[in-house]
């Protein structure tokens, strides 16, 4: 008994110390760390034992969950970076600049996550550099590889001023900021190519895919729906930033974004429906199947319902409605990536596919890792503060606002 008591004292000390640490880290972060570390362990297993041992992929299903969600879905959700950056720096809507830095960070981290997902998925990850020197310019995959490389670099540069300022390198930050417009234009260019090329990838499978998804317009669909996904992600991100970092964005901006989203969604839905009509297919033809239900849900629940919600002014003003709509859009676009790259192939496969637990764990780990990285940047670097030195256009707009529009607007 005596011995036990002696041991208990340091034991409780350790426990108390631990619980204090947990309180300071926060339960949310602890969970994220746990998920990220399990993901890392799963990745080690995948790399050591191979794709067959860790996934449910097969010759019937050469592409699975990782390509559909981690790559196709991840790239679409990262589209907020180029949409917002272009709106601010090209279209000169400087009011939205508060959204730009976090959106660019999300885009950058999103692309890093996509690269990790790709490394997991390709059979020989150490050869990932091959497309740099081994060319096959007719291959859509070749274009995809180059777009990932170039756009990740551009995003890193676009984001670098925040890092430089966080590190106290004022001059470097100023230098990059001076080049922001050309950088953003390059970013828009690579994003346009990349978002659409993911759709073009599937164009090579006309004899395998369900006609509900196979269309010569696939590249256009992928681009347009990525713009919607990007805008919705920015909404969700802004609300999370308000909640977790106390960085509240004026609701006027959010309403502005929502109004833009309505147009994008209507355009998306119109394209999809028109394409179905012209090609004589569509979920309304024939009996209800898994495929027709999913295709209808993509357009109905993922585009039309949120568009209708956001089109009504009184509803648009309520942040809860805006969030619901944003979630629906994100879910709809993710679903579209899963449907077009997996479900659409079901008709030509002779067996079924359902992702393995390990495939899910890796995806969850990548997402948790991305969130931890975001959290780290948000806490240590000036992500939500206005730039110490504004960009030249920003200065002009600021001046303009003060001299011409002031004090209204």
């Amino acid at each position, binding site marked *: 008994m005596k011995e036990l008591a002696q041991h208990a004292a340091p034991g409780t000390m350790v426990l108390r110390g631990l619980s204090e640490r947990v309180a300071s880290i926060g339960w949310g972060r602890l969970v994220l760390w746990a998920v990220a570390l399990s993901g890392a362990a799963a990745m080690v297993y995948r790399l050591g034992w191979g794709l067959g041992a860790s996934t449910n992929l097969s010759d019937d299903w050469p592409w699975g969950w990782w390509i559909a969600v981690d790559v196709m879905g991840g790239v679409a959700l990262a589209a907020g970076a180029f949409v917002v950056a272009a709106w601010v720096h090209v279209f000169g809507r400087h009011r939205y600049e508060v959204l730009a830095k976090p959106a660019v960070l999300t885009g950058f981290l999103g692309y890093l996550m996509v690269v990790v997902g790709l490394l997991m998925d390709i059979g020989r990850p150490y050869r990932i550099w091959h497309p740099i020197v081994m060319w096959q310019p007719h291959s859509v995959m070749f274009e995809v590889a180059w777009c990932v490389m170039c756009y990740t670099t551009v995003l890193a540069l676009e984001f670098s001023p925040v890092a430089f300022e966080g590190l106290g390198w004022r001059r470097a930050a100023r230098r990059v900021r001076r080049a922001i417009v050309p950088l953003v234009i390059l970013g828009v260019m690579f994003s346009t190519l990349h978002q659409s090329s993911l759709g073009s990838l599937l164009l*090579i499978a006309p004899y395998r895919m369900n006609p509900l998804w196979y269309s010569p317009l696939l590249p256009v669909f992928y681009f347009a729906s990525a713009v919607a996904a990007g805008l919705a992600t920015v909404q969700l991100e802004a609300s999370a930033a308000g909640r977790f970092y106390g960085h509240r964005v004026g609701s006027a901006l959010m309403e502005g974004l929502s109004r833009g989203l309505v147009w994008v969604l209507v355009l998306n839905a119109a394209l999809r429906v028109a394409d179905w009509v012209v090609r004589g297919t569509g979920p309304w033809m024939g009996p209800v199947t898994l495929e027709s239900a999913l295709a209808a849900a993509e357009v109905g629940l993922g585009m039309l319902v949120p568009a209708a919600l956001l089109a009504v002014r009184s509803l648009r003003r309520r942040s809860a409605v805006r969030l619901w709509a944003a979630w629906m859009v994100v879910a709809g676009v993710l679903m579209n990536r899963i449907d077009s790259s997996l479900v659409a192939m079901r008709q030509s496969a002779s067996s079924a596919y359902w992702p393995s637990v390990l495939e899910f764990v890796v995806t969850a780990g990548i997402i948790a890792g991305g969130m931890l990285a975001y959290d780290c940047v948000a806490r240590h670097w000036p992500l939500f503060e206005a730039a110490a030195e504004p960009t030249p256009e920003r200065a002009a707009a600021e001046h303009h606002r003060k001299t011409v529009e002031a004090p209204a607007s």
Partner: protein
Amino acid sequence: MPHAGAPISRRALLAQGAGIVVFTLAGGAASQARASAAPPDAADDAFGMLVDLTECIGCRSCVYACQEVNGWRGDPERPEPDGEQWTAVREVAVPGHPDEVRYVRTQCFHCLDPACASACPVAALRKTPDGPVAYEADRCIGCRYCMVACPFHIPRYQWDRALPLVAKCAFCARRLAAGEIPACAEACPTGATLFGKRSELVAQARRRIREHPDRYVDRIYGAVEAGGTSWLYLSDVPFEKLGFPAVGASAPGEFTRPVMAKVPAVALGVAGLMAAVRWLEGGREAGEAGRPPAGKEREP
């Protein structure tokens, strides 16, 4: 970037910019025309194979020969090719005749305009002038886009290996180069697998159909499928009933090459458009603010 200032000259410049965009788009269209006009690599005097399913007795000599020549091991009775074997013989019951079977050899069709080759980002798969679609293992990154692309579901993956490769019939390219014929054709005791120039094999197949219209269905599978393949099939049972995939006459690459040809034009078009918008917006901001555009003065 020189800033001329007045919105008028901006507009003129925008017009020029639009001209450049149109020009590059037209260039893209022209190069697209070139791309789709390019004939498939293989001329008709390249090698091919004719598999006459009415003559196959299911002895699997072709499978054993392939295993021996290429060093594969495993059960030769398996019905489908896999990561350790390039060809396989599948036994299919004839629909409506439960006691009758056909033996269907399956392997790469060596398409004239192979989808796998136009998919592969690193050109690990290539159509050779002799006929074979060759796989260069040292280049392959394992993206498996070739597997998605192939309309015949041919490329297999070595799923049980930590560092897998793509596996598919090589058309004994090495033996062809040495003047020998493919091992499976050499081993076939009935002549069900015939080797020769593709053009001659097509003529031969037509003749067989003409001379025995009662024996064959009037179709050479592979003559036009996916833009034509080096391997051709004859059968007395409709091909769909034997599990041959329904593949249209266009090579899948025909659907992606035009898109790829547009890439430079789209890139320049988007960049030009963005630059033009920025230019106009800069002019608007500066004009409204009543001062020279932003780029001029910086840093106090």
